[in-house]
């Protein structure tokens, strides 16, 4: 990709996306303060009421305000996914870096372990781990980490192996640079962009998986608010009160689309600079 025109378009897109992303993320971060009603206040006389001025998105089967619960639940739905990505990014990079830099039997063993984890249908592994640990947000996050770390380990390893062959790394080694110096000064900084692209594109997947686990009842537990759980709880009222399902789904969908667009935009921006390839 060459020429300033494309770059400008990417920049414009990035700005638009950042604005949109902050329009979604800032209210959700401040959810507790923006919520029109108490997300946990039950009021059976107002149960399953459609959207109104007091309850913009209607109420659920216990008469709780759905909009307030969506805002309250954003933390569990979005920020837990971000935390999982941060964790698998770190763990995967460490493992991949070790395997790729050390080589030999360490590499062999670590890569075989990665391969075994990848031999499981990933969501099923997450379901099984969450099922064994028992439901709960922390356990759901652990099971998602178990599911997602392998991508980063493999990518980091292949990047390290590629970089190790670069002339400047060899030169640094020849000059007597220490391993730690080479890793932190030369290898890690050059790995960051492709790894970041993968992470950015992964956020939406993790968000969807998290919602899937909650939907199955393996994530956040009632009465706490979380989107996947809200959708699951609304199932009996599919016919009578479809807003119970519609609005949390819409929130989830909007956030996932935004994360996807942002990830793509980031990839294009970094690719345009020619710093890395998103071949994950």
């Amino acid at each position, binding site marked *: 990709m060459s020429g300033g025109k494309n770059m400008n378009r990417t920049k414009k897109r990035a700005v638009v996306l950042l604005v949109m992303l902050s329009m979604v993320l800032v209210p959700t971060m401040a959810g507790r303060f923006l919520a029109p009603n108490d997300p946990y206040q039950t009021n059976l006389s107002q149960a399953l009421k459609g959207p109104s001025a007091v309850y913009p998105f209607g109420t659920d089967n216990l008469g709780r305000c759905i909009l307030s619960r969506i805002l309250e639940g954003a933390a569990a739905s979005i920020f837990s996914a971000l935390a999982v990505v941060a964790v698998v990014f770190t763990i995967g990079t460490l493992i991949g870096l070790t395997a790729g830099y050390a080589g030999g039997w360490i590499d062999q063993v670590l890569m075989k372990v990665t391969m075994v984890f990848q031999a499981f249908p990933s969501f099923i592994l997450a379901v*099984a781990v969450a099922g064994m640990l028992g439901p709960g947000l922390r356990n759901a996050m652990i099971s998602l980490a178990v599911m997602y770390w392998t991508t980063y380990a493999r990518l980091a390893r292949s990047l390290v192996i590629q970089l190790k062959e670069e002339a400047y790394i060899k030169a640094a080694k020849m000059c007597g640079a220490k391993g730690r110096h080479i890793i932190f000064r030369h290898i890690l900084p050059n790995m960051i962009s492709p790894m970041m692209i993968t992470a950015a594109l992964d956020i939406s997947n993790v968000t969807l998986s998290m919602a899937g686990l909650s939907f199955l009842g*393996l994530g956040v537990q009632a009465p706490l608010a979380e989107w*996947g759980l809200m959708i699951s709880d609304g199932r009996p009222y599919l016919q009578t009160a479809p807003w119970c399902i519609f609005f949390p789904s819409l929130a989830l*969908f909007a956030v996932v689309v935004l994360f*996807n667009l942002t990830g793509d935009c980031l990839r294009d921006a970094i690719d345009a600079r020619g710093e890395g390839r998103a071949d994950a």
Partner: protein
Amino acid sequence: MIKFLARKTGMLILIFIGITFLSFCLTYLSPSNPAEIKLNKTGVPPTEELLEQTREEMGLNRPLLVRYGDWLFDMMKGDMGTSIRNGKPVVSELKKALPQTAALTLVSMAAVLLISIPFGVLCARFKDGPFDIAVRFVTYLFASLPSFFLALVFLYLFSVKLGWFPVIAPKGIRGIIMPALVLALTLSAWYIRQVRTIVLDELSKEYIAGSRARGVPEREILFSHVLRNAMLPITTLVGVSLAGMLGGTTIVENVFSWPGLGQLAMEAITARDYPVIQGYVVWMALIFLLVNFLVDLSYGWIDPKVRR
């Protein structure tokens, strides 16, 4: 070919051991221990002494690897323990549910291919045309759609509003249509893009330009050259995407009450029935492993270059 087979089989055995070992270790994640569960079930209040005795009886005090070996040996004989929930053998529980999941997976995989190959090829053929742009837009949105939401929309539209299908899926063809379609649609979004890329890649090769220069009709190029060569990478896609599909069955089966492995697993999780959860993950992983092994072999069969 023999060398290729031997290498593949060696890898298969290695991964098999890895999978079973990891699944075996999963039980250590559970907060309650098997001896306690057993005692609770018989209604005996678990004292420290009794727990120790039960642990000894159940062989829980032996080293991990010995226990793994025993467990693996029993599994090979078809004994994966008994369900805590109803005391039935785990294997028979799994066997009962497996055909449902297998049928669901096969039907949706067929639907995925039927949907995505024509769409993917057409998108590639008319790249950047209105059709291509529209399909890309729709697939982009679909990739962001949680499968359970799509399932609920289907349930609302076709069961509640139109009344075409019962809300709880009956066994047989009428019951499989909705879960299979939901599963297929969510995966097709990804598939169409992959097929499009594969076909575009093939279309950019020199022999295509050569054929065009020689005046070979576009239709013939597309069907007898491009599609034939594209079948190889598409075969691999099937193997790779099976993981997503098996994972998707967990959710879809639960929404549509389809009595497959996914529903069994969720019932087991709710009842803290650890042997069944363990059996579920082992079976799913082995199915995935076996199918990919077969895909690998067929790939080597079709394309001699891979054998090396």
